[in-house]
C-alpha cells in the first residue's frame, strides 16, 4: 500500500526553515532581476541620467558667463541653427566624412583584393599595413602637422625635389590644401580598418561560385561585379557604417593640425561643440548642438543599418 505524497518541511526541526525556504523561493524567482540590477543601475547612473540631464541643460540657460539656470525653451537650439559657424561645421563634417570614408573604402578594397591570394610575405605586409590603426589619432595629427608645416616639415622640400622646382604649399592654412592634408591624415590611419574588414569578407566568400562563373567565361571584372560584390556587400556596409560612425566625430587631427582654422573653415561638428562647451562653457548651447548632431547622425546611421540588415537578410 502506498501513501499519498505529503509536503515535508525541508528542515522540520529548525524554526526559521519555512522562512528560509520562502526566501530561497523569492530569490529563485527574482534571480534574473537580481543579476541584472547592478548593470541596470550602472547604465541608469552613467548613461540614462546624464542623457536626461543633458536634455534638461539644453532647455535652460547653463552658461558660465551668465548666472542662473532659467528655462529658455528652444532658444539654445535656435541659436545653434542660426549660427553660421555651426552650419559650416556641419558641412565640413559631411565633406570630410564623404572624402575620408570614400577614399578609405576604395583604397581598402584595392588592398584587400591585392592581398586576398596567399603569397610569400603576405603576413608581414598585412601586419605592417595595419600599424596605423594602433596609433593614437592625436599622434597621427601631430605627425602630419610636423611633416607638412612650412618650412621645417620636409613635404614641400621633397615635392620640390620630385617636381624639379620649389614647392611652397601652405598645407595647414591654405585652402584646399588644408582639407587635403586632413583627408590624407585620416586616410593614412583608417584605410587599414577598411582593408582588414574587407579582407575578412573576401576570405569568407566560398570559391565555388567564382569558379563556376569562370567556367561560364566571365572576365575578372564581371566576376568581381556579379559574384564577389554581391557577397561582399554586407561587409562593405558594415565597414562603411563603422567608419562613418567614427568619421562624423572627427576631432583629434583637426585639433592637432589646423586648430579649426584658418578662420573656422576646418571646424567639424565635434570641434565646434568642443570649443563651444569646453573652452567657453556655453554648455547649454553646446548640449543643444550635441542633440541636433546626434539626431542627424542617427538618421544617417539608421539608414545604413537598415541597408545592412536588408543585405544580410538577402
Amino acid at each position, binding site marked *: 500500500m502506498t501513501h499519498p505524497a505529503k509536503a515535508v518541511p525541508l528542515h522540520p526541526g529548525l524554526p526559521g526553515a519555512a522562512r528560509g525556504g520562502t526566501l530561497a523561493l523569492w530569490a529563485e524567482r527574482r534571480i534574473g532581476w537580481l543579476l541584472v540590477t547592478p548593470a541596470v543601475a550602472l547604465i541608469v547612473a552613467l548613461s540614462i541620467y546624464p542623457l536626461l540631464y543633458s536634455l534638461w541643460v539644453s532647455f535652460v540657460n547653463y552658461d558660465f558667463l*551668465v548666472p542662473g539656470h532659467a528655462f529658455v525653451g528652444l532658444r539654445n537650439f535656435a541659436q545653434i541653427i542660426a549660427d553660421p559657424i555651426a552650419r559650416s561645421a556641419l558641412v565640413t563634417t559631411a565633406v570630410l566624412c564623404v572624402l575620408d570614408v570614400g577614399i578609405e573604402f576604395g583604397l581598402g578594397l584595392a588592398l584587400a583584393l591585392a592581398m586576398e591570394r596567399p603569397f610569400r610575405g603576405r603576413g608581414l605586409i598585412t601586419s605592417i599595413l595595419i600599424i596605423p590603426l594602433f596609433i593614437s589619432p592625436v599622434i597621427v595629427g601631430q605627425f602630419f602637422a610636423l611633416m607638412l608645416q612650412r618650412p621645417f616639415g620636409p613635404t614641400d622640400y621633397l615635392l620640390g625635389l620630385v617636381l624639379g622646382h620649389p614647392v611652397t604649399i601652405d598645407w595647414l592654412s591654405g585652402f584646399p590644401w588644408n582639407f587635403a592634408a586632413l583627408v590624407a591624415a585620416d586616410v593614412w590611419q583608417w584605410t587599414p580598418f577598411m582593408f582588414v574588414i574587407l579582407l575578412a569578407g573576401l576570405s569568407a566568400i566560398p570559391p565555388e561560385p567564382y569558379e563556376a562563373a569562370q567556367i561560364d567565361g566571365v572576365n575578372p571584372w564581371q566576376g568581381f561585379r556579379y559574384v564577389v560584390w554581391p557577397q561582399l556587400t554586407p561587409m562593405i556596409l558594415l565597414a562603411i557604417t563603422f567608419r562613418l560612425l567614427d568619421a562624423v566625430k572627427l576631432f583629434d587631427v583637426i585639433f592637432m593640425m589646423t586648430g579649426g582654422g584658418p578662420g573656422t573653415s576646418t571646424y567639424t561638428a565635434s570641434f565646434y561643440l568642443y570649443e563651444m562647451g*569646453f*573652452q567657453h562653457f556655453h554648455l547649454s548651447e553646446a548640449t543643444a548642438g550635441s542633440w541636433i548632431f546626434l539626431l542627424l547622425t542617427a538618421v544617417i546611421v539608421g539608414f545604413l543599418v537598415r541597408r545592412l540588415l536588408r543585405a544580410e537578410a538577402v
Partner: protein
Amino acid sequence: MADPFDRDDPALSRELDAWLRGDHSRRSVLRQMLIAGGTAGLGGTLGATLGARVAEAAVELASPDTPLGRVQAAAVKASTTGPTDGSAYRAVQAAKNFKGVTLGMTYEAGLQALEPRNFSGPLWQQLTGMNYNVVELSHPDQYAKPIAEHIAQSGAYDILDIEPDWIPSLADGGVIAPIDDYVAKHMNKADLEDYHPLFKFLPTYKGKRWGFFDDGDQWALYYRTDVFGDSKLQAAYKAKYKRDLRVPTTWDEYVETAQFITDQMAPKVYGAVHFPKAGSPGNQFAFLQQFRSNGGTFFDDKMRAQLASDAGVTTLNQMKAAYKASVPGNNDFDAVAAWVAWLQGKAAMLYSWPPTGRMSENYSQRDKAINFIPHSSVAGKVGYAVMPGGNGEMASGYVKALASDSANAEAAYLFMQWVTSPPVSLVRVMLPYTLRDPYRMSHYNSPDYRALWPAAKDYLSTLCEAANSGVVDIVMPGSQDYSLSLDQMCTAVWAGADPHAALTKAANEWNATTDKIGVDAQRTAYEQFKKLPGCYADHTIAKMGLAAHASA
C-alpha cells in the same frame, strides 16, 4: 614629525650656511636636504609616503658662484632667516602651521611646470612641511579645467595659474577668491610696491585683488644688430628711401623695413618672422596691440563692437603686408616655430615674449629641458626695442590666483605670497627653462640678472620701458570669446578673406557675446577696464605719469 628644513638641525644648518657661503658643493646640500626629507618621511606611517617625499624633495640649485646660484642662496636666506618683515619669511613662518597639507596647483604643461617641480615646490616642502601637487594643463585648459572643477565642486585645485584677462570671468563665476584679507594679514606692503606699476594693477577687479601677478609677458621687438648695422644695407636703404636705416618705430615703417630686408637679403635672411597660426596664440595679441596703436577702440557707448573701422582695416592690411615680407611658411608658424627661425638667423626682426632675449643668447638652452630649441646663431647680435607704434601687448601673463573651492585657502595663499615674493620670484624668472619673465622692479634692477649675458641690462631696461607703454589684453568677462573671434578673423584674412568683411563678422560675434552676457553688465565691465592702466594707447602707465624706470 621633524621639520624637514629645521634650522635647529645642526648638521643641516652647517651645510646650508656653508652652501650660502659658497663653501660646499650643490650636491652635498642637496644630499642633506634629501636626508632631511627622508627623516621627515620616516616619521610618517607609510613607506610609500617616504618614497614620494624623497622623490619630490630634490631642489635643483645652481652652483653658488653663478648669478643663478647667488639669487637662489638669497631666496633661501630670505625664507629662513629673513629679513623677518619680508613677505617670503612671513609666509614661511605662517605656513609651518599647515604642515602636512597638500596644495594642488595648476601650471601650464611642459616648461612652466618644471619650475614648481624642480625648484619652488620642493623648496616650499622643505621649508614648511607642506606637500604640493603640480597639475599640468594645456594653456586653454588652465581656463577651462578650473571652471569644470568649480562646477563639479571638486576642490581639486588650491592655486591657479591664470591669465589676467580671465579674472573678471573667473571672479564673477565664483571660481577664484579675493585675497585682500590675507594680504592685510600676512604681506609686507613694500613688496607690492616692488611690482612694475602695470603688473601691480593687473590682478585687480571691482576694487579687489584676485591674485599676485607672476609672469611679465611683455612683448618687445628683437632685432639683429648685425643686419641693421650692415653698411651695404644701410647704403642701399638710404639710396631708396632717402633716410637712414633704423629700428622701425611705426607699423608702416616696420612693414617697409621688413620688406626691404627681405628684398635685399632673402633667402639668407628675411625681414621678420611672426606666429599667426590659428590658436598658436599670436593673432589676437598682435591684432590688439596694433589696433590700439592705430587708434582703434573696442566698443562704443552702446557696447557695439568697433572692430570694422579704419583702424581695423589698416591693422589687418599692415599685418598682411608684414607677413608677406616674412620667412616663407610664416602663416603656419606658432611661437616655437618662429623662435626656431629666429635662432637659426633667418629673420632680422621678431616681436615676441621675453624668453626670446634669453634664448637668443643661449641662456635658456643651457638646460636640457629646453634643448628642443636650437642653439642660437644670433647670440651677441641681438638688440631690443619697444614695439613699433609704441604700444607692445602685455600678452597673457600669469596671475597666481586662489581657488574659491580650496579647502586650504590660507595655506594656498601663503604659498602664493612666498613664491611671488621678490627674492623667490627673482630665482624663478632667472631659471633658464621656465619661460617665466621679469615683472618686478627688483628683477629689472637685479645685478645678478644683468650679469647673465653682456646685453642683459639693455634687455631688462627695454622690458621695463615696454611695460611703461604696454597695452593689456581685454580684461573683461567674455575675453575668451572675444579673443577667439579675433583669432578666427585673422586666420581667415591670412587665407584670403576680405579684411573689412572679416572685421564685420568678428564685430557681429563680439556683439553676440556682449548680448549673451548682458549689455549693461558688459558696459560696467568695460568702464572698469577703461580705468586699468594699459587699456588703450592713451592710457598707458607712461601716459598716466606712473612710469617706472630700471636703474642705470
